[in-house]
């Protein structure tokens, strides 16, 4: 490590630049069917909101100029929400390494969370109603770091989810045995 370059710290035998880099990973995209699940569930919610807003306009005609504006706003937002849910699908991907799992998401606000396997408390696989219709599953990995540090990977084939879970738990058990 050279002196003039800002380094994350001195006093180490580990060369930082030689460490495995979580960014140069092969990111695996989610199942394409998951895009429809996202858009459909957003559409259901949007339909309920928009329906409610327009119903209000009909029932309360004395508030018309204001309530119409609100209803139009709700409708536009709902449309945007459906579109955004479809769009953000393309920015979701995950990556599996020997010792950790990463999940990347976000179109404008990007984020990537990494959980090392030897910190996993437990995992579960969930299938919502829509997930089942489209033959998908969602894998959640829990750590002791609280909700914000848990990792949820949606849009997996149930088979893949099971395999991932087995791999993660297999690795955690090994890590515990070695202790």
């Amino acid at each position, binding site marked *: 490590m050279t002196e003039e370059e*800002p380094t*994350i710290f001195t006093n180490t035998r580990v060369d930082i630049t030689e460490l495995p880099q979580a960014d140069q990973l092969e990111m695996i995209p989610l199942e394409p069917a998951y895009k429809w699940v996202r858009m459909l569930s957003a559409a259901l919610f949007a339909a309920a909101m928009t329906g409610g807003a327009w119903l209000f306009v009909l029932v309360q005609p004395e508030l018309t100029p204001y309530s119409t504006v609100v209803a139009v706003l709700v409708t536009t937002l709902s449309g945007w929400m459906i579109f955004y849910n479809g769009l953000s699908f393309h920015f979701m991907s995950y990556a599996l390494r020997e010792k950790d799992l990463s999940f990347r998401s976000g179109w404008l606000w990007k*984020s990537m969370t*990494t959980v090392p396997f030897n910190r996993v408390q437990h995992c579960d696989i969930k299938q919502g109603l829509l997930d089942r219709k489209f033959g998908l599953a969602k894998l959640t990995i829990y750590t002791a*770091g609280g909700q914000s540090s848990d990792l949820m990977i949606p849009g997996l084939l149930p088979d893949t989810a099971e395999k991932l879970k087995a791999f993660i738990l297999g690795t955690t058990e090994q890590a515990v045995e070695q202790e």
Partner: protein
Amino acid sequence: MEQIFSFHQPQRQSPKAIILILFRYLRIIVRQLWPILLVVLINPRSGRGFFITMGIMLVTFVSLIYSILAYTRYYFFIQNNELCVRSGVFRKTKLNVPFDRIQSIDFKRNVVHQFLNVVAVQVDTAGSKGSELELDAIELSQAEALREIVMKYKREQAISEIAPDAEMSESVSVTEEPPELILSLSAKDLIKIGISENHLRTAAIIFAFFLGLADDVDQLLGWDVYGELEHTTTAMSLVGVLATLLAIPLFIGLSFTITLIRTILRYYGLKFWREGQRFKVVSGLLTRNEKTISRRKIQMIRWVTSPLKQLFGIFQLNIYQAASVDQNQDKSLVIPGCYQEQIDHTLDAVVPSFREAVFTAHGMHPAIVYRMVFLFGFIPAVLFGLMAWYNDGFMQWLLVLVFPLAVWMGILYQKKRRLKIHPDYILSEAGIFGHSYKLVEIYKIQSVDISVSPLQRRRDLASLEVYTAGGDISFPYMRAEMARQVRDYILYRVERDQKSWM
């Protein structure tokens, strides 16, 4: 008085628990219904007094019956190294907590406990929701015996786990070394702490309380408190101005008194002990709380000072342990005021080589100031602006002040914010007017997150978020390249380290 408790037979709590259960139910009822009770008490219309008395008696009677039932149906015992509880009046609940899961066993005594000479026992488990366990009241000797059984089991487990490591098993067997008193708060210390607490927060709580009260009164009695207030304030007569001028010191005095009382109630006679590998805090005037954290379980240490605290040279110290999310606050050890000396002492005990460690400091990009100005300048400005627009008062003057203040705060924040990294630790420094430090040992980190907002991407910046089981460290606006390197290093350390994080 040496008694041997085996706990293998299902047994009930102390019969005194009935009283404590009753108190608990009544407190819940009163908390739910206090606005109604208030109205009943200050507005006892004639003729209804009888029904009200009957109602209160009926509620009390039903609660009493329920408490007795709850007591008789509550059994606890030990089976296969698990602490088991069978309870429930209508719906039966079975709860088995394996000793391995138990993080700590704390005792709590409120006034009633102290009067009846019993303790409540709180058994905390890590992470797993719904397995926290609480006994309302058992005899102190019994509680201590119960704790000793669990602790003995855990000690034995610890020894058998690391038996080949001679050095470690030695340190485990020395757990019985005499306790060392690190800090004992005197009355003078308590007053210093009371003075330097955050009065703005108390003021906000009082304010919120009065708003809530006004709402309740309005709904129940039909007194329009807001209307009255608005009437007096908008009039802005000489009386109004005088009233406001008088109200400010009164308000400050009130919040000051409340803070002081609260401090004394919570921290009276606080004693901070170190017992070998464990830290213990006992405190409280009416409710004596005892909390213990074992050194291994500590996840994060935080020490904070504010300008007022700096005057007295005191810090607030928090020691966080692994805890389920919703109870984080409860499970941390809080020492509201201690001096540099005790901070150093604690750090030496928890992270022995920390104070000599050489850190590399990373600053925050100046662009953070924009965000601070947005948060503390723009948003309040919009709020004040709206308020000024609706009722033309003095609000527009605040508008002029808010932006320079936000810029100043932003600059101070950016200057003080540091992420210091050492091969073994991460230290996050922050503060606008005061100072705050958060220390995490890298191998205790649970997961890492890097996020980039559109604004950050333009400047090639990123936010780093590090999660532990006892709290998070977040550091926004650092160079993206650096954030990635830190992340990769943390992952490398966590994945390579075989040391148990708790």
